[in-house]
């Protein structure tokens, strides 16, 4: 099975408080470190496992500037066979649709049976997969939490829905799936793994290579634009109990009693 996995380089936010810069135009990026979007990492692991089971190849693609090459390489160290970077000045400022447009052009250059994306990213909202599928006229399933290859034409996927239930679907290939975390246990990529793929050439495709008209992507093609960042208003939130621990506990117990919180 020929699989394409779309990955994104995002700030690693797990342990860090994100702060906004002075004029609110961006988050403070000086102390940030970047990594591959967590959901995308599960998607790559899933692709590798499918390949190892039924054969084929895994290609990892990312839209971004030259820094994005780092995450493509990391996913190749994980076991992807090929990496492609889609980079062009004309791509800057693309919205979700723009990104999907760029990816669509790349998908059409190859012969893929399956395209995977992460279900969402910390700085996004899980839109690219659905758009890409619509643009390609391929079937789509989001929030995929289990995947089983039936034959070379169909796969069976489980979507994570409310209540932790799994919605099982059969879906024809080629298709686009967005992968939810927890579908597998992604393998570790060490320094050595990254060094092993350090010298592998990662082709860069620009707008010209992909046959994309610059107006359809980037800032000019974007229908959705971020204007600023701001900190969500506090204040209307919780009444913060202050004082010594004993005082706090006393107050809290009173409140809990009043609200029926102690049986």
């Amino acid at each position, binding site marked *: 099975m020929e699989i394409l996995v779309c990955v994104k380089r995002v700030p690693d*936010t797990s342990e860090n408080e*994100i702060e906004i810069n002075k004029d609110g135009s961006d*988050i403070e990026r000086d102390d940030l470190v970047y990594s591959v979007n967590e959901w995308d990492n599960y998607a790559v692991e899933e692709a590798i496992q499918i390949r190892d089971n039924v054969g084929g190849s895994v290609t990892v693609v990312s839209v971004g500037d030259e820094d994005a090459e780092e995450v493509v390489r990391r996913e190749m160290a994980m076991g992807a066979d090929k990496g492609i970077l889609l980079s062009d000045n004309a791509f800057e400022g693309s919205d*979700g*649709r723009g990104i999907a447009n760029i990816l669509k052009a790349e998908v059409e250059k190859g012969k893929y049976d399956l395209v995977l994306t992460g*279900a969402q990213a*910390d*700085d996004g*909202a*899980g*839109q690219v*997969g*659905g758009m890409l599928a*619509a643009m390609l006229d391929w*079937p*789509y*399933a*989001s*929030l995929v939490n289990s995947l089983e290859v039936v034959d070379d034409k169909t796969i069976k996927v*489980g979507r*994570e*829905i*409310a*209540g*932790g*239930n*799994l*919605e*099982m*679907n*059969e*879906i*024809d290939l080629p*298709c686009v799936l967005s992968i939810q975390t927890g579908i597998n246990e992604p393998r570790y990529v060490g320094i050595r793994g990254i060094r092993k793929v350090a010298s592998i050439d990662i082709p860069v495709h620009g707008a010209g290579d992909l046959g994309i008209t610059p107006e359809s992507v980037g800032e000019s093609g974007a*229908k*959705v*634009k*971020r*204007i600023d*960042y*701001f*900190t*969500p208003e*506090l204040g209307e*939130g*919780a*009444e*913060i*109990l202050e004082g010594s*621990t004993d005082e*706090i*506990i*006393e107050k*809290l117990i009173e409140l*809990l009693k009043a*609200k*029926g*919180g*102690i*049986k």
Partner: protein
Amino acid sequence: MTQPVFAYILYENGVADDTALELLTAAAKLNPDASISAIVAGSGAGLDAVCNAIAASYAEVWKIDNEALAYVNAEVLRGMLVRILPQGCIVLAAHDHFGMDLAAGLSNKLDAAYLPDAVDFEGIENGKLKAVREEYGGQVSTHVLCDISKGAVITVRPGSFAPDESKSAGGQVLDKTADAMEGGLPGGARRFLEVVAAEVGDVDITKSEILVSVGRGIEDEDNLEIVSDLAEAMGADVSCSRPIVDAKWLEKARQVGTSGQTVKPKVYMALGISGSFQHIGGIKGSPFIVAINKNSRAPIFQIADVGIVDDILDFVPELTDKINEIKG
């Protein structure tokens, strides 16, 4: 002419989704002058009753009734909606497991803009909607401008808008099934098979009146004891956030959130839970929420009634002791 607004209301398991009336508020906030219609798709006996009930709130309800929608499949529905929606309209849906499946592709098929996961609207100017979104797990918010002049599909975060309970519309139900089916049944490439229910645990937290809920702040599986001790003292059940289930420290049936259980307790103790919207999305009704977290900036404090900034590992055992002392 003002663009009409359509709210897609998920009809599942014989009932309309909780977000039905939130979408009405959202639509009105988006554009108070627009006509607002609801779209409900499904099949079976309960559908008409639900459509009629929704018509109390929406001036117009478009019904699509086809047995292929007995379990609503976004691939099928998308194809139908493309056939019936007027050009340049605005479609609202909840940003949930179904909205995420439907909306992005729909925007594309309608050649409309897509604005995912909006939490607020701040007006339309020159064909551009100013909206609020959250990023990085709610740590920061952003204003975005969305060009809706050629139509838009917008998903709205559940719980962001208060439900409009006025029910003063006295609307009518229009059956759009025939239009939706014109040209045959779309979306055959993805076929729904079944819903595999999550494993049922030894406790049904959806029925609990008091929940002691634990999150990442517990740090270690062995510390869960302090949580169960508090729950025992309060006469409560133990629930948790997703990371605890991912770590396999508690069973899935105890997870509160959009990918877990929806709970309606009277009192909700959030211990070491940062309060992602997926978690908060699982708390319904209006429980008295107590948040204890060492990070004073944790989003949970925004929705909690009472907050305590402390390490749960220190605070909770003391609280438990005190409650036990009082109870004797």
